[in-house]
């Protein structure tokens, strides 16, 4: 493991034999979780891979699966539905990660000093984050209705009702923003912890040097927050690509397929028209995309850290 200063963490001075014995010994603690995950997570994942290279629909899900290689994956990736879902996923992820992180940073900078009102606001935000996605989705579906909160407020200013979950590209954007709304509290907590870890001397030094607030922010605070931004970025990326609950509850991928993302397409293929192998293929492609993006991201991070 490396520290930011680049030194290798040194191991305590213990004899090699003892270290090796200790190492092997503690492996046992891994056993219960490993067995559990092998059975209920890894094995199903392997089945998922197998499903995507076979032809599986509801009539043969419990019997034999004829092997068709990558044909199934290729054919589903070539459909217009898949392309649309991929484009929607991309837009969705950009919004959730972008708004989530930017909002989290802004909130952290606003609330990190504490105080009673600040503490209460943070508690309120964390409460929203802690609610299950389905509940938030149902609530916001109602809030975005023409008779809901947002349009009623717009009505006060004589602005016409906006059909947030119906018109044009708005459904996807609205659901993404609601998702981002639930991500912001988590990002706030992380950034806030990092801010609290900041040595006060640095801020004082910047002030003494005559830095204006936004300069302090840009040249002192942000670089210190960089590791948090990077970690949150990866987490948010993975989470946003996986996100399903909000779409399911708020628009069901619609109208038509306007807000269908890759996970939703996977669900629809498997559970609405029972083409399990196609649903599995879409899911695997999603995993591959995210893995690739995450790896590229990490490589970029490591490069920058070494530079």
């Amino acid at each position, binding site marked *: 493991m490396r520290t930011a200063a680049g030194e290798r963490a040194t191991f305590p001075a213990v004899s090699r034999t003892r270290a090796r014995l200790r190492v092997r010994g503690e492996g046992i603690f891994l056993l219960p979780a490993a067995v559990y995950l092998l059975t209920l997570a890894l094995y199903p994942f392997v089945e998922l891979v197998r499903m995507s290279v076979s032809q599986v629909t509801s009539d043969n899900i419990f019997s034999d699966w004829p092997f068709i290689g990558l044909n199934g994956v290729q054919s589903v990736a070539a459909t217009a539905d898949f392309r649309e879902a991929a484009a929607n996923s991309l837009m969705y992820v950009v919004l959730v990660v972008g708004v989530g992180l930017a909002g989290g940073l802004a909130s952290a900078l606003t609330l990190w000093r504490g105080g009673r009102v600040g503490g209460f606001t943070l508690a309120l935000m964390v409460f929203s984050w802690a609610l299950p996605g*389905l509940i938030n989705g149902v609530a916001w579906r109602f809030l975005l209705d023409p008779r809901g909160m947002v349009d009623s407020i717009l009505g006060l200013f004589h602005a016409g009702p906006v059909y947030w979950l*119906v018109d044009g590209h708005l459904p996807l954007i609205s659901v993404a923003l609601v998702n981002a709304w*639930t991500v912001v509290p988590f990002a706030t907590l992380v950034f806030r912890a990092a801010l609290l870890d900041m040595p006060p001397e640095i801020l004082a030094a910047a002030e003494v040097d005559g830095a204006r607030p936004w300069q302090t922010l840009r040249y002192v605070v942000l670089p210190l927050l960089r590791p948090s931004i990077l970690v949150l970025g990866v987490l948010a990326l993975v989470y946003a690509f996986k996100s399903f*609950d909000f779409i399911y509850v708020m628009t*069901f991928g619609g109208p*038509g397929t306007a807000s269908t993302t890759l996970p939703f397409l996977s669900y629809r293929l498997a559970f609405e*028209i029972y083409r399990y192998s196609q649903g599995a293929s879409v899911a695997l492609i999603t995993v591959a995309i995210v893995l690739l993006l995450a790896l590229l991201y990490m490589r970029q991070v490591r490069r920058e850290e070494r530079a």
Partner: protein
Amino acid sequence: MSAAEPDAELFLSLDRSVSRRQVLKSAAAGAGTLALSSGMTSLLAACGGNQATTTGTAIGPDTTGTLTVWHYSSQQDVKTVQDYTALFTKKYPKVDVKLVYVEFSETPKRAIAAAAAKQGPDVFIYGGNEVNAMYKAGVFKSVDSYWQSFADKAQFPDGVITRFNNKVYGVKGYVNLTGLWYNKNILDAVGVQPPRSFDEVTSTFAKVAAAGKVPIALTGQPTDQGDWTAFPWLTGYGFSYKNPDQSAIEQAFTLVNEWARKSYLPKESVQWGQAETFNRWVVGDVAFMENGNWNIGPASRTVGGKFTYGTAPLPTGPKSQGIFLGGEALWTGAFTKVPGIAWAYMQETLLSKEGLLITLQESGGIPARHDMANLTQVTSNPLLTAYTTEVKEHGAEYPPEGGAAIAAQAVIAQNWSAVIGGQKTPAQAAKDATDGVKANYKP
């Protein structure tokens, strides 16, 4: 990033059939998703355990045996099943009937899994759309030989019979279907009647809109409920899954797209299932809604005296219209050891007049038998007349093509939703729909 990441309960408790009266119950309740069962543990052990019965074809009051029946009626609805089962037990008192609850969306999977192990119940009471998959997995046994010698078979319209390979497999005795509900107060105030043909519809809606009311509420979701709602309009112009006529689809889509654009139909309907459509209509400012007979009870409870209402047959189009007949069908399990008793059960319960009177009175199901259309119990409720007329004249099999068109139905539903929401023009949606149906349904 959400604290409660996975929602396993969500998938494992999905229940989206349109023959169920309340859809998205768990999501709408918002009190957290329900676990898989509504409290009852499932009895898979009951699957396939039939004792030997008296052999020979004659079945009478001395016949003994066990009959396992799978159903998905919830605790509120199971009384209906028990009541019509009692009709069978009265005639065959020595047969032990075991009613086994299997949750709706699990039934196909369980049945297919059991069939793989060469097991299964004697009778299924099932009205979902996976019947094709179940048939292909060998879950059902044909009742064709019994049906052909069934005295009353002429009383049942074609739309309630599911055939595979030209043999009769499943039969529905009662059906649930959509019709046109109307708010009489609004109609009288505006001075219109329920439109009877497609030509009259838009002008009727225009008059209602001019009077400041909402003309029509219907389901625009891109789901099987949306597909149900779209079917009468599409078929009225000549569409069928076997023969997806693009111009027919385009005409139907143009109609509904116009309603959405002119706000005759609220655009939020793209999010409505049949339950939400009903809730919107009940508010009292909506003139018409396309919805089902299962609302008869709820309407009297929630509307009460707020306004007078009635039902009418859906407006018909230039071609022969079809309206999906939902409802539960009876099937015989492939691994039953007592097919004769299973058929007797079917005959005495949901194929008999007494049984259908029970389902009519207790769950509002419309009896499909022609000879029941004139019974006082049916004629005395004016709300039922529209539905019985529709059953007779326009009843269409559900799921269409024995369930083989599921993927094609999804395409129709998506495009229906897209023209209401405005994402696609009727022409574009019709083209996509035609291509999609052709690609996804090959008879």
